[in-house]
């Protein structure tokens, strides 16, 4: 296991560096005069040149990337006019648009995405595994048919359509829930949960479907295994067989998939965030890319990349544990 972790860590570092190079290259090549955008539409060519020099935009690609790496490992100094601002390592530079430290900017946005991701994760795991378990428990009966149809319907709807429908029903018609307006957890937990309920539900409804299918499939597979036959031959009841043995067998692959999905969720559920106006990483990425704000884009891609790579490693570990029975004596 130690060997495995070391290799994955090395792999992760490689992936993150590769990501930053890809994004730098893409934006270096992309048209759109960054200096002009950063300076403002009515800047004179002289002013644009000054801004371009100040942001080192004139340097060749490798030099800009070198500055970036230097910032990442040792920190960098920026002139604020009257003094010097030291952005300590890991410094992802300053945003062209708002001169804010990218690290601060992302840390300010992460809680919103995290709350959305974790809340939705819990809901869709419960919903998914629950539906899967129920449909196996009731297999062959009408309820299983209905549940299968609901899960398939869940997979067939984009999140922004489900979100819209929920808003129409729960907010406008029945007015049970307020229109979501993100309140940080630290400020007011009760409001935080109340406002995030709608995004959680709509995200969970869409993402729960694959889990329901997978739970059902792997539970059925486990039920056909020899060891379940053994316990049935020893008089163990159906409920215990399904609840204890079949479910336990199905959990490992499901959690592995869950780890994978939550990793990409940290990449910001762009659609859900835009639909419900949640100031998360996803929306920030869309704005930053549209304003060709390179430092923010690179910073965001690295952070989301980190979570995805972390999730992949965790998913593989869980998968390895799940398949432990294959690697037998």
């Amino acid at each position, binding site marked *: 296991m130690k060997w495995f972790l070391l290799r994955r860590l090395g792999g992760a570092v490689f992936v993150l560096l590769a990501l930053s190079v890809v994004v730098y290259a893409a934006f270096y090549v992309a048209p759109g005069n960054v200096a002009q955008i950063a300076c403002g*539409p009515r800047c004179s060519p002289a*002013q644009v040149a000054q801004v371009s020099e100040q942001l080192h935009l004139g340097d060749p690609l490798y030099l800009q990337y070198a500055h970036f790496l230097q910032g990442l490992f040792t920190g960098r100094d920026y002139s604020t006019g*009257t003094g010097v*601002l030291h952005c300590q390592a890991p410094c992802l530079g300053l945003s062209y648009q708002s001169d804010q430290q990218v690290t601060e900017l992302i840390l300010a946005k992460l809680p919103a995405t995290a709350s959305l991701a974790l809340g939705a994760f819990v809901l869709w795991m419960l919903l998914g595994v629950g539906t899967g378990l129920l449909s196996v428990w009731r297999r062959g009966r009408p309820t299983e048919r209905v549940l299968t149809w609901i899960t398939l319907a869940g997979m067939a709807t984009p999140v922004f359509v489900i979100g819209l429908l929920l808003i129409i029903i729960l907010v406008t018609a029945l*007015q049970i829930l307020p229109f979501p307006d993100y309140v940080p957890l630290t400020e007011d937990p009760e409001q935080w949960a109340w406002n995030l309920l709608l995004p959680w539900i709509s995200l969970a409804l869409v993402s729960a479907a694959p889990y329901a299918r997978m739970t059902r499939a792997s539970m059925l597979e486990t039920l056909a295994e020899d060891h379940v036959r053994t316990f049935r031959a020893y008089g163990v009841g159906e409920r215990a067989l399904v609840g204890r043995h079949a479910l336990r067998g199905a959990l490992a692959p499901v959690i592995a998939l869950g780890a994978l999905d939550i990793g990409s969720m940290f990449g910001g559920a762009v659609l859900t965030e835009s639909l419900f*106006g949640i100031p998360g990483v996803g929306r920030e990425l869309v704005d930053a890319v549209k304003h060709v704000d390179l430092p923010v884009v690179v910073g965001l891609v690295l952070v989301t990349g980190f979570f995805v790579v972390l999730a992949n490693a965790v998913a593989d570990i869980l998968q390895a544990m799940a398949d432990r029975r294959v690697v037998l004596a």
Partner: protein
Amino acid sequence: MRQPSVISRRVAAATAVLVVAAGAAACGPKDNKGGDSGSGAAGKPEKGGTLTVLNSKPQEDFDPARLYTSGGGNVPSLVFRTLTTRNREDGAAGAKAVPDLATDLGTPSKNATVWTYTLKDGLKYEDGTAITSADIKYGIERSFAAELSGGAPYLRDWLIGGADYQGPYKDKKGLDSIETPDAKTIVFHLDKPEGEFPFLATQTQTTPVPKAKDTGTKYEEHPISSGPYKVVKNEGDGERLILERNPHWSAATDEERKAYPDRIDVRSGIDSAVINQRLSASQGADAAAVTTDTNLGPAELAKVTGDKKLAARVGTGHFGYTNYIAFNPKVKPFDNPKVRQAISYAVDRSSVVNAAGGSSLAEPATTFLPDQAAFGYTPYDHFPAGKNGDPAKAKELLKEAGYPKGLTVTLTHSNDKDFATSPEIATALQEALKKAGITVKLQGLESNDYSDTVYNVKSEPGFFLGGWGADWPSGGPFFAPVFDGRQIVKSGYNFNSGQLNDPAVNKEIDEINKLTDLDSAAKRWGALDKKVGEQALTVPLFHPVYKRLYGEAVKNVVISDWTGVLDISQVAVK
């Protein structure tokens, strides 16, 4: 000002749902008695309470040197007082400038190339220290620093030595063309006559900044206030801004700003649909809420017009802005005036107005200058296209121009759904011109790519959608950058798309700039617009109309003709 960043229509990424809530207690029709001519909730406005501002865009770069505002901006003008400011009265009077920190609109001398201002007495910062002319000089100098870029270009173009000055951090000795003989007076030396300097003095660049308290790019987090409110909290570069009363502000020295609420909570990053939804529901704190950057979209408008109570809570305003088709005469076949005229005849303004949100959000335009007196609006329609275009006349002209079988052209537009240069408007034009035998191919560009392409002399396409707004309500800043030959920029952003360099037009522009009597200047701008219009360098399409909701408890709502929107310094919530 090209695309007013302060006032933007509904942003593309927003998804919207509008609710028509049953609505709280209805309030009767307003009467405009008393000094406060604003509409809104009944009863006399009193001091106190918290005004909530719900915005999509954050108050980015909240530094007087960096803000690009029209007349000092809405929220910024609560904190940054300027030499002069916009008149806060309702209607057409609102389009004039009035003194603010200065005692008057400035005394011009030497043929309007030297402007002198004297400061009122008893002007203090939030920390009680006095405001001096040196602070105003330093404030202007700061706006030249590369780190604090973003402001309007006029100071750089008008002040002597402005083009080369690099800001106080690099040129320690400062800008000579601004003199401060004593703590109360400040004198500006311009390199050419500018009758409209008082309008320029309304911009936040003339806000005083004490040199001792300047922290460069960090100043925006807590700028020193000279206005009725001071910054108590500024999170995420303007995403959350809380203003509270500035004890050292004296109402005596400031007739313009009423400043009724005790506290103003400016929240941003909210979806524009959410803003309209909360304003119409108007529950809880949202009853005392307004917005300074989100208009009603067409779909939301459809609901509002159907509900009397809601319709009463909509402020309608006109901001000096024109959307038009721009031609680049250097590109074939648009060098031929007959082709440009043919297109002017073929345009179907009603389908363009629909694409821009319908007749209540856009009014057809036949003149380049906006249809407001302040711009010297002189109606003309050299190439009458009627409501739905005149394809026959257009075909006739095309035959004369040597294109009997019609022609094929490419229209460049932006991909943003901004109801100005958007794909919808481009497709509306495409359909109209098809009737006149002109096949139009569409070229949609991403927003940044679009600005780089159309505002660069080398890459400017022959036929593209454009729009222009007023930095202040006068023909000067509207007309000159687009038609003045000397404002053609070879490398960098050039807004003179027609690349017109007509000595007669240039000379007339200089003449008008000399006038300090703004009314006569306005008439001259109107006449010049009519004359240049004959060359059909642009095809005016429509002027936008801004409609915005405000909360039920909001009183004294004033819509000024300068900004076209509700003035936050007048409203009360008690």
